[in-house]
Structures are given as structure tokens and as C-alpha cells.
């Protein structure tokens, strides 16, 4: 099992694997997002209370899910990088950070745009909103720390530790609406009993969530490939690959 992992975790195999996966991921993302947006914005029925405004859920909720999911990927691959010194794990962690930060910002901005007409305020310091803002700062801290340390391996180790410390924020974000009195409503979909949402509204949401997830993989692999090109530019296999492609 270990030899299998080590083989695929080598930069060369990862580079070639990513090359094959990227077009598939890109096209499936595009199709899912087009279908999901059409279903969500046009086909899905209006809400009994919020009218049309609830449709921001089709961007806001998948973005918020992704902000937490990407953080977990980042922290896990950071831990793998720390323990097993696998270069590709560090590359995945550092490539994920800006994408995760973007999703977090998107969740905060769309939530704010929805909050003004529905709640009556752009922002309120409740536990859910504040912990999501802390998540954005964790991402930004990760990015800043990485660019502040010159040596690549030291930077990767320091960032992995930062990411692991921040993991504690993820359950806080998820359970904030249960543990404390918040203005933000409780979970609609990610709870033990059945989702508190009509199926006709839920399906476009799940399509969008899958689309966002594939987009993340697509964007992350693109970034990892660039990192491999940069770090492996002096290796024989890379030289052969590049000159071979030119012939």
C-alpha cells in the first residue's frame, strides 16, 4: 500500500495524473454550474417567506460548505506533509489556501447581501458570522506566513502547524448555531433528520455543491501543476517532458 501511495505522491506521477484529470474536472464543473444555476435561479419555486431572495442560498451555502471542506483538506494534507514529508501534500495544502479564502469571502459577502433585506442588517457579531470571519483570517494568515518564510520546507511546516491549530474553528463554525443563541438560522441540510427544505429546492443546491467541489479540485490541481513545474524544473523527467512535448 505504501509503495502505491509513494508512487502516486511523486511529483512526476502527480503531474501526469493531474494533466489527465483537469479537462474532465473542468467540463463537469461547467456543466454542473450551468445546470445548477438554471435549476436554482429559474426552475426552483419561490420560498413561502423570503420570496425570491432565498435564491442566494444556491451560492452562499455551497461556498460556506467549501470554505470548511477546503480547510479540512488543507489541514489534513499539512499533517501528512509534517509526518511523512511528502512534497505533494505540502503543495496541495498551499494550493488550497487561496481557493479556500476565496470561497470564505464569497460566503461572507453573499450572506451579507442576503442579511440586509432579510434580517435588516449587513453584519452582526453573532457566533456563526464571527467564526466564519476567523476562518477567513486563518486562510489569510496561512497565505501570509507562507510568503513570509523564504525556505520552502520551513514555510510548509510552519503553515501546516498553523492550519492544524485552526482546525478547532471548524466544529465551532458548524455547531455555533446550536451551542449559542445566534441570529443565523440553524442547519437546513447537514443535520441528522431529514433536510428542512422542499426537494425541488434541495436538488439544485446539491448540484451546485457538487459543482463547487469539482471546481475546487480543478483549480487546486491547476495550481499544484504550476508548483511542480516550478520546483522540479531542474529534474531530468521534467526536461524530457518539456522538450519531448516541443518535438
Amino acid at each position, binding site marked *: *500500500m505504501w509503495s502505491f501511495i509513494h508512487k502516486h505522491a511523486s511529483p512526476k506521477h502527480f503531474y501526469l495524473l493531474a494533466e489527465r484529470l483537469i479537462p474532465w474536472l473542468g467540463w463537469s464543473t461547467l456543466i454542473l454550474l450551468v445546470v445548477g444555476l438554471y435549476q436554482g435561479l429559474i426552475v426552483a*419555486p*419561490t*420560498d*413561502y*417567506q*423570503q420570496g425570491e431572495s*432565498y435564491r442566494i*442560498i444556491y451560492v452562499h451555502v455551497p461556498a460556506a460548505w467549501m470554505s470548511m471542506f477546503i480547510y479540512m483538506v488543507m489541514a489534513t494534507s499539512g*499533517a501528512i506533509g*509534517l*509526518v*511523512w514529508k511528502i512534497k505533494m501534500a505540502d503543495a496541495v495544502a498551499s494550493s488550497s489556501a487561496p481557493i479556500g479564502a476565496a470561497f470564505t469571502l464569497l460566503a461572507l459577502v453573499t450572506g451579507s447581501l442576503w442579511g440586509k*433585506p*432579510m*434580517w*435588516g*442588517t449587513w453584519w*452582526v*457579531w*453573532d*457566533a456563526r458570522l464571527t467564526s466564519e470571519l476567523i476562518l477567513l483570517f486563518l486562510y489569510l494568515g496561512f497565505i501570509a506566513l507562507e510568503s513570509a518564510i523564504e525556505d520552502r520546507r520551513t514555510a510548509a511546516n510552519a503553515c501546516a*502547524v498553523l492550519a*492544524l*491549530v485552526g*482546525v*478547532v474553528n471548524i466544529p*465551532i463554525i458548524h455547531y455555533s448555531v446550536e*451551542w*449559542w*443563541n*445566534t*441570529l443565523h*438560522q*440553524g*442547519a*437546513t441540510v447537514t443535520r441528522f433528520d431529514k433536510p*428542512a*427544505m*422542499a426537494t*425541488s*429546492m434541495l436538488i439544485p443546491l446539491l448540484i451546485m455543491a457538487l459543482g463547487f467541489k469539482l471546481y475546487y479540485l480543478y483549480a487546486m490541481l491547476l495550481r499544484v501543476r504550476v508548483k511542480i513545474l516550478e520546483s522540479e524544473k531542474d529534474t531530468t523527467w521534467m526536461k524530457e517532458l518539456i522538450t519531448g512535448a516541443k518535438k
Partner: protein
Amino acid sequence: MPLLPKNPKRRKRLALIGLLIIGVGSAVALATVALKENINLFFSPSQIAAGEAPLNRTFRIGGMVADGSVKRSSESLEVYFEVTDTAKNIPVTYNKILPDLFREGQGIVAMGKLGEDGIFVASEVLAKHDENYMPPEAAQAVMDAQKLQSTLKGN
């Protein structure tokens, strides 16, 4: 455990990571338990009735707008309503524009001060949305079903 690394150095690093997460996790857990009251965005009507809320200082109250309690003034924006958590009711007055979702039975969070007379004077009223999403027809069907059930119970 085949997944655990055999190399003692790696084992040590893995253990350190485990300790780090447990350590930070328990530190944060202790801190949030200690701060529990401060993290709550609002007080419930029962808490206020029990005297837990500060007098003459700004705080937030959260609950449902009690059915049949909303009284609007005919000359100004002044509105009177009661906030309930089904156990206790707290009277609230407000004289600015209410959010779209404000209605009887709706969850709200109001910021303001509790006067000596026990009336909460709000300076801001926010609507708290619930986690249920459904088309209007479905909501109508649910309401009809509830009505039917209550009439059946009544008989």
C-alpha cells in the same frame, strides 16, 4: 495498525500533532464554556424575566413575536409588540422601520434597553429567519394540515 508509520521519528511527529490538536481543542473548549454567556447574541424572555439581563444597559432580546400582540400607532412608526419564548412574554416598543420578515410568529432579535417599567425599548429590530425552505403552496398545505389537526383535537 498498518497505517501508522513504522519510522520512530514519524511516529513521534504524528503523536505531537495529535497532542497539539487535543491541546488547542481543550483550551478553546474551556475558553468558550467560560465565555458562553458572552458569546450568546441575545437573552431569551425567560432569562430577562428571571432578572439575568442588565438593567439600563444595551443588550439584545430574542424570541418570537407573540400572536396578536402587535399594535401599530396610527400617527407614527411607533409599534408595540410582545416577544415570547412560549414561557414568558416581554413587551417591546420600537419606532423605526421593521424588516420585511417581521410578522406575528416570526423570530426576531431586538437591541435596546429594558426600562424600569419592564418595557424593552428597542433601537434596532432584526428578523431571525428559520431553517425551513418550501414553496408557498407547500407552506399553505402544512398550515391547512395543522388547522385540521387542531380542529380535530378540539372536538
